[in-house]
């Protein structure tokens, strides 16, 4: 079962290692982890997607809460959050496949951000399922290489993960 967990952390020495190390030593199976600065540069926000049962999810959340640099941990309930992921994919630029790739990119609202004689780089954003669907479309044509950011997520409405006190 897939869970999306948002973590608000102090932007301090080694904090990513602390979180990542926890996954390793407690044996959690993580699909993705993203991290970036928040509106307050003293804090970073992580989005973790976990593949695991209720036990794994409860343990992950409880273990994260124990880390000193972790200020807030929240399970983002399905349907109450928005999720996005970004994909960069490099495909061959051949006359016989070019139009098919560009048509697919168009349908998936992708952007061609590099166009060279032998290759193109396409940028697609969306929910992970959409990203996967686009990959499935271009895969038979040929993927030279690709890079996914992992999921970032916010709750809908005015809710905030962490309030400064």
């Amino acid at each position, binding site marked *: 079962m897939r869970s999306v967990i948002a973590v608000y952390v102090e932007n301090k*020495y*080694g904090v990513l*290692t*602390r979180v990542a*190390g926890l996954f390793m*030593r407690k044996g959690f199976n993580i699909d993705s982890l993203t991290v970036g600065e928040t509106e307050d540069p003293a804090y970073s926000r992580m989005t973790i997607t976990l593949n695991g049962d209720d*036990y794994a999810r*409860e*343990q992950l959340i*409880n*273990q994260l*809460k*124990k*880390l*000193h*640099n972790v200020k807030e941990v929240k399970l983002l309930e399905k349907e109450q959050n928005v999720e996005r992921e970004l994909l960069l994919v490099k495909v061959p630029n051949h006359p016989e496949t070019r139009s098919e790739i560009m048509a697919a990119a168009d349908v998936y609202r992708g952007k061609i951000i590099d166009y060279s004689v032998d290759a193109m780089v396409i940028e697609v954003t969306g929910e992970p399922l959409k990203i996967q669907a686009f990959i499935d479309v271009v895969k038979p044509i040929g993927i030279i290489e690709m890079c996914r950011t992992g999921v970032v997520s916010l709750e809908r409405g005015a809710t905030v993960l962490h309030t400064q006190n």
Partner: protein
Amino acid sequence: MAKRKKRTINGAQLAVQILIEQGVDTVFGYPGGMVVDLYDALYQSGDKIRHILTAHEQGAAHAADGYARATGKTGVVIATSGPGATNLVTGLATAMLDSVPMVAITGNVPTWQIGKDAFQEINITGITLPITKHNYFVQDVNELADTIREAFQIAKSGRPGPVLIDIPKDIQLAACSYEPQPVVDPFDTPKVPEDQIQQAVALLQNAKRPYLYVGGGAAACGLGEQVLLLAEKLDAFIGCSLMGLSAIPRKESRFLGMEGMHGALAATLACKQADLIFGIGVRFSDRATGNTDRFGKDAVILQLDTDLSEINKNVKVRLGMIGDITEALFAIVDAVAPQSHPLWQQTVASLKEQQTATVRKVKAEHPASLYPAALIDVVNETKDADTIIATDVGQHQMWTAQSIELSRPRKFISSGGLGTMGFGLGAAIGASIGTGCRAILVTGDGSFGMNLTELATAVTYGVPVVIILLNNGTLGLVRQTQRFFFGGRYAETTLNRRTDFVRVAEAFGAHAQRVTDLDSFRAALQTALQSNRPTLIEVPVDIDEPVLPMRLPGGAVDELITDLSQEELS
């Protein structure tokens, strides 16, 4: 009031100043190149803070740990960079697993040399990440004071644990000033919600065979009296983990002793037959529960702890209460109505009888009278209530845990979670130094051989520690596993060594004696306890003397070998 001019000091002096400010009067450690400034600052503050020089950094870490376990204060250890720092690793892990508040300070190479593989450079924050509650690498002298204060705060808050601060040499030399602050308070512990207390009370009152299972958390918080009151009101019985052993005085009739792998038969079987198990400051360790899939299957399990990650970690509980365990337990004791369970009384009485019969049988098998349980009985008769009992890890530890009489918490110092052989001597020294009380270390030839160089520390500082060395010439716990389950193939567990422990101890300057019968043991122990000087008493133990009961590997809580005639089980 005129503002006092701030005196410029360096980072090392500031660090020592903060230690003093936070109430530290004793530190354990070992100097080296990257802490020479820190040691200079300690030297200059020698009237306010005492440094105990050990023989090895590992011994210093165990001493700081023993100090903390015995006093309840935060133990402090100092080591230099590189090997000094890595030698703390086992000590920190030991403290982490047993929730002992400790602050470790290490030096490191100057910040401009970090990452260059400079001489004695090691990334100790990386190494100790999983075995500390938190750690710091100090990069700015202006953050040093608050970092050390916060380290003490983290170490003693909630579920205590070790915190490491790594201070590069240039930070120790950087100019700074000191502004006094009060001793830090622990972070606030949340209250257990009232509705959970009420649920717990309802479940406890509903039980017909209630069993209270106490651990290190209950012992550290001194909750023995409340647990006894609760047992009295509920007509319940009490068992404990190794870490909970000193929570309840042994003589209490409702206290059945340590349960689990080598626990008291009555405690283990009562836990098995209970219809309610209430864990208080205990993490349901595999040593105690056996196969968790089959633990408490027919029982309602309640858990009260301060660490939320312990709820449902090892066993699934009906009700997990997180927060201040002292406050919650008082509230529960207050609210429960007295119960009476005569059938449960009868059941436990017969379990106790079964246990007594086993003990009688062991006695009958030992006409020579010099066997472990008898030795521990002599210790019980001889020691006073203030005496600290420390152990290493192995058969001697289990024999001690099974029979030692403790009347108050913080008097039993033993490595529970990590099971660190070589822990005992350093820990006994630290515990004795911290409390001013005598310490008795019960150890074995395997464990003692690991860190016996700390005899030098005991002798140098005149620490009144009596070492009872049970010498069976083997790594006994492993041997008995090999005996029962590996067809008696004793792979590398027989210590065919010709070490003369008496002469070794004498060479260190300790008093030492070998005894071969119970009366001379008694006399030697009495003399040693009166002498106030480090003494080693070596006692031979039969190589095949087992620790019983013994749980089958992977077995449920009650799948035990209780008798040697079961040997063919293998």
